[in-house]
């Protein structure tokens, strides 16, 4: 099996502050991996580096054998890496359907964009179905609840058929029900995608995670199954030191 994502010797420095130090990180094709760690551990920064938003001080990021260094953000997306942000951004003035259509059309050339949307493409219809927002398809995204916005965002990713999905805290601020639905959505997406999820809600983790990577102060702390990671004394120390139960 070959790695889909290979991060080697990564260092990220923000004006003197080392946000990530000597990080090696590998993701195999088809994995559903959870990335956890206390606030400020560097989880978002890692995603920012992979997607081209932040330039590393040193180290390499290879995706499907291709070096991503210096590529512009939209080119990395076109290479097959999709992401969400900690705060969900959907386009309030556009309908749910148009949000999905916009995402689906990212490979269209300028001339193809000049036409109006007629009907619904199969991809968009199936994404709409996956995220369960069919009833709200024609409503502006501005009326959606917090949870629904997150699902729409995930739908906008899925419809682009990326090879790797990076989800940054998709269940933050969600109710219990919404968390469960998001977890199920994630598992169904993971059936035919490689997914990396940043999350530190332990209940959520126990229920939906298999392999977990723990970051702490910009370094890799440990990697393993949920049970292994929970049993690791270093992880307990990191979390207990911050008064969080593992």
């Amino acid at each position, binding site marked *: 099996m070959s790695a889909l994502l290979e991060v080697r010797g990564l260092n990220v420095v923000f004006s003197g502050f080392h946000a990530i130090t000597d990080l090696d990180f590998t993701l195999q094709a088809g994995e559903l991996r959870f990335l956890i760690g206390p606030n400020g551990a560097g989880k978002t920064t890692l995603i920012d580096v992979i*997607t081209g938003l932040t330039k590393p001080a040193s180290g390499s990021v290879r995706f499907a054998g291709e070096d991503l260094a210096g590529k512009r953000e939209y080119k990395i*997306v076109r290479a097959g890496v999709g992401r969400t942000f900690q705060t969900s951004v959907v386009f309030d*003035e556009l309908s749910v359907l148009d949000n999905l259509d916009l995402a689906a059309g*990212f490979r269209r050339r300028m001339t193809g*964009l*000049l036409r109006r949307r007629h009907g619904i493409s199969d991809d968009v219809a199936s994404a709409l179905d996956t995220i369960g927002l069919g009833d709200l398809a024609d409503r502006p995204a501005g009326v959606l609840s917090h949870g629904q916005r997150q699902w729409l965002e995930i739908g906008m990713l899925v419809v682009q058929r990326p090879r790797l999905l990076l989800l940054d805290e998709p269940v933050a601020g969600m109710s219990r029900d919404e968390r469960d639905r998001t977890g199920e959505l994630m598992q169904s997406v993971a059936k035919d995608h490689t997914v990396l999820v940043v999350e530190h809600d332990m209940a959520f983790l126990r229920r939906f995670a298999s392999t977990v990577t723990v970051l702490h102060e910009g370094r890799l702390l440990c990697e393993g199954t949920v049970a292994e990671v929970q049993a690791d004394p270093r992880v307990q120390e990191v979390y207990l030191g911050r008064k969080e139960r593992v």
Partner: protein
Amino acid sequence: MLSPFRLDLLGKYLCYAIVAVGISLAWGRGGMLTLGQGVFFGLGGYAMGMHLKLQDGELPDFMSWSGVEELPLLWKPFANPVFALAMVIVLPVLVATLLGLLVFRQRVRGAYFAVLSQALAAAFVILLIGQQGLTGGTNGLTNFQYFFGLDLYEDADRRILYLVTALILGASYLSVRQLVRSRYGQLLVAIRDGEDRVRFLGYDPALVKTVAFAVSAGLAGIAGALFVPLVGLLSPANLGIVASLELLVGVAIGGRYSLAGAVAGALLFNYAKTIFSEQWPDGWLYVQGALFVAVMVWAPRGLAGLSHQFRDALSSRRKVEVQA
């Protein structure tokens, strides 16, 4: 039938309305606060003006006054009508495209972009005034007799010119409306509301914005080119900082999010300007400033958005009542 004098003014307003269509696209949809549309208006206008000055085959009048004896190299190709007409669009579109790619790639936006575009208008005026022998300096270009076979001193011919201008306004309106309703139009709004998110959907926002900016520049160029025969004069005062701002104020008043609002705003604003500056020339500048501020503070969606705003106010009041 309007008297020739009023008809003259109407022609001028129609030109500003064509510019407004472009501003509504770039600013209303694309969020690019362009305070330098005068530059593109001027580029189109000078391209046309230069051609009209060369129609009688003689050296333009202002050149002999400033001691230029031979037609400058830059002017020569403008004698050709096809070249001049092409330049009316090519020049503004080219400048806007280069500028757009440069600044939008660097993620210059918001107030920074506004100031930059305004600085461009200031620089353009300085350039025009400095090159007296080439451009006619502060006086600009005047005294045009013919426009593609139309005699600009004949009322009947002038009426044809108004008709052409009105038709071009209609065509611009319809094309931009089509653009706004297309997927491209949605993408533009998405970039206005969340540029970074759009980037991570795999689009290049700089390119998308540049297209809208270039279209708005092309429309301003066409408007400038029609302005020249309609008004019979084009000078740096028609395209400097103040003129560029005035192009925008009409759109703000009418409503930048609505194409029809922008057009109506431009017509109304310029009509008001004529009336006011006839009656009270000194006060106009203040009235205009006050209007702009009032609209931006109390009615950011302009006149066209008032009903929208009213609805919002009603529904938020209802919400408060429900909560109480």
